[in-house]
């Protein structure tokens, strides 16, 4: 019996990108259903009644929510190919730690950069760049966060690359100037089809955020 895999998604969501990348890495065929986040479908509300958010992976009718939980699920079910988490428990713990760090530090500070101005934006910018520098230090000279192979932490972070151009423009800074190794890492990831096909074009992201900034009254 063939697996039925559906992803409830939103094109600009970095959380959705994580799942897209994981599915692509494993070569899993799935149906992508784009959600309008300002007019959520009854189906989404039924599949994720707790948080009412995307992404939701629906595997043979059963919903899984929260992007990092979904990626681990994908890794455990389709365990016969392209492992996303290391096999050693200590390395796995480190991968989970850094993915959790990314969730705690990058999203909210990045959000401040594009939704605010003045002092609040400056504070967001500082936290965003400090967190990226911490990640860059963790990366060190490795090609990927997991070492030689692309994996869980890379998947957790790389979607943000699609937003750097937007953040840089609104916040008036350059990620490459502050974190050159991280940009080199991002470009290396983008050479993988699973990543390049899962990330939206940076100009489209910028235009989308520019429109949203007007709505926030920040422009």
């Amino acid at each position, binding site marked *: 019996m063939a697996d039925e895999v559906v992803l409830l998604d939103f094109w600009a969501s970095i959380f959705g990108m994580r799942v897209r990348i994981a599915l692509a890495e494993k070569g899993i065929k799935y149906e992508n259903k784009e959600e309008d986040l300002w007019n959520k479908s009854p189906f989404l509300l039924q599949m994720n009644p*707790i948080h009412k958010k995307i992404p939701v992976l629906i595997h043979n009718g059963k919903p899984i929510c929260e992007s990092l939980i979904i990626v681990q699920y994908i890794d455990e079910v389709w365990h016969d190919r392209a492992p996303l988490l290391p096999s050693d428990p200590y390395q796995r713990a480190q991968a989970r730690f850094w993915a959790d*760090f990314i969730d705690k530090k990058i999203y909210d500070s990045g959000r401040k950069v594009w939704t605010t101005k003045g002092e609040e934006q400056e504070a967001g910018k500082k936290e965003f760049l400090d967190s990226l520098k911490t990640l860059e230090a963790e990366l060190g000279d490795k090609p990927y966060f997991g070492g030689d192979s692309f994996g869980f932490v890379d998947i957790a972070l790389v979607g943000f690359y699609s937003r750097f151009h937007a953040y840089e423009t609104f916040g008036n800074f350059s990620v490459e100037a502050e974190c050159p190794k991280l940009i080199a890492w991002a470009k290396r990831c983008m050479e993988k089809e699973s990543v390049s096909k899962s990330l939206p074009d940076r100009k489209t992201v910028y235009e989308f955020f520019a429109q949203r900034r007007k709505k926030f009254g920040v422009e």
Partner: protein
Amino acid sequence: MGEVKVIGSTRSLFCTRIEWALKLKGVEYEYIEEDIRNKSPTLLKHNPIHKKVPVLLHDGESIAESLVILEYIDEVWTQNPLLPQDPYQRTISRFWAKFSDEKVLLGSFDACKAQGEEKQKAIDTAQESLAFIEKEIEGKKYFGGESIGYLDLAIGWIPLWIAVMEEVGEMKLLEAEKFPFLHKWSQIFMDLPPVKECLPAREALLEYFHASINYLRSLEANKQ
């Protein structure tokens, strides 16, 4: 299977859950009490990123973040497994553990801290989150099913810590009529010897929460 140490604080529910896991697996460990208001060089060395407890030291290697530590313990010491075998059931456990830490815990703490007009709204929000947990335990002995599991340990803070927050915050959250299944589970869970062994003294927790809440309330008052 190696030297195990826990750098923790007995008042921290994130540390208690780690001790429960180690006890349930029969793992010997040394507990290093940390004064979180005066962090030691050892803590800062082993958790330089967040500078927080708990940290598990296993043969000198450090692991931080309590839910990450729980999974590590489960993977290294495979007796008395904590997470279910089935991948889908594992996602359910992980989802509710995250929900408990993000919504239930923060909501309960906010309800404890809130005063005046804001208080009832904060209580309602906290109880909405608790209602989801109530549904999860309905019809089950433990969150893990017939035996105690990862989710029981992740949610295990509720019986003692919510009772403390209710007293400090002068409010009722976990009312027995509204949450009968959670109440029943609390009684079974809190009766287990390894659970009881690791719980902090209620008086110490009350003192700690009183101090924390007063401090936070004074910060907010100064902002206005």
